[in-house]
């Protein structure tokens, strides 16, 4: 412990971060008596971290091609030590996140925490909600089993029926008129590169705004 303290102060002597950490994070005043419903946002973030951690491991084995995706998922689930647990944690964290983000939004709505001056943070939260739905939709295709293939086929077909923009959206999502190799590459890249990057940016903004504006006081 002393060693850790020593290293911490050695680093701090050079970077002078301690005052900021103490004043702006640890000693930041928050309203008294926050109940457990105030934890839903933190839980959602924690699940995001678990999803990222398990997701990174799965990319070590996953291959985004129709010929190999299924076998890769089969291998990483059933042959790799702990593979089924890692994929299981990813699966369940994702499902649970849908519940916790919904509860977090309900809590913010019920407590009126979106009201002035926190409108911008509410908007960043709605963006995050859309991103989470995007993760769910793109991730579902990746195992390339029957359920994945047909659910995505039907999902993208439904989008295709929308007037004016439908046909374009369908082609954009599928990478052509049919669901195939390009679709899988697109969904994979969205799932592991685009969406995580955008999500991290919005999360940072979300957190900085909470720090700046403080937690909306309970009623």
């Amino acid at each position: 412990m002393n060693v850790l303290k020593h290293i911490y102060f050695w680093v701090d002597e050079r970077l002078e971060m301690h005052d900021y950490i103490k004043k702006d994070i640890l000693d930041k005043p928050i309203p008294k008596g926050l109940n457990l419903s105030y934890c839903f946002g933190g839980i959602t973030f924690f699940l995001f971290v678990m999803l990222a951690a398990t997701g990174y491991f799965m990319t070590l084995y996953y291959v985004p091609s129709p010929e190999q995706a299924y076998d890769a998922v089969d291998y990483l689930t059933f042959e790799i030590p702990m593979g089924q647990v890692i994929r299981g944690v990813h699966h369940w964290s994702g499902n649970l996140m849908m519940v916790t983000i919904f509860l977090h939004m309900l809590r913010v709505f019920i407590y009126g925490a979106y009201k002035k001056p926190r409108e911008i943070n509410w908007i960043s939260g709605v963006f995050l909600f859309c991103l989470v739905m995007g993760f769910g939709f793109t991730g579902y295709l990746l195992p390339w089993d029957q359920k994945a293939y047909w659910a995505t086929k039907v999902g993208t077909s439904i989008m295709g029926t929308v007037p004016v923009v439908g046909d374009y959206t369908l082609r954009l999502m599928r990478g052509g008129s049919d669901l195939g190799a390009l679709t899988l590459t697109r969904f994979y890249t969205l799932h592991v590169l685009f969406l995580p990057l955008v999500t991290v940016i919005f999360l940072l903004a979300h957190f900085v705004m909470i720090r700046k504006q403080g937690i909306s006081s309970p009623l």
Partner: protein
Amino acid sequence: MEELSNTDKLEHTEEIFYPSFLFKEIVVMMLIFILVAVILALVFPVGLGDPADPTDNLFVPKPEWYFMSLYELLKFFPGKLEVIATAIIPAGGIVILFLIPFLDKNPEKRPLKRPISMILMLLTVAAIIALTIMGLLS
């Protein structure tokens, strides 16, 4: 003049983030970790279905539960009305979500003093839950 620390400036309705709330949050996160990693992932291990077969037209797909309410909505708007379920309600819903702080400018925060907001919220939540359950059962 020496600068006051945050702790000295606290009002009686405030406390500081560490350790009280951070501690609570960490305990909850550990419980979630146990729930997900130990209970769910081990008791309900993920599997893998049959490999995708694009020629199999008999497979009846069902969306994941979190898209089920949208999918179920399609059944209420057949034929030409389909666009209501595929575009108008989902896109309109998201637009309304974005606009909530501007549609509701009443500074009152207490839920019981905002009956209209609360009723609309309860109806929306009830509709989403009902559609999801109907979809899962069908």
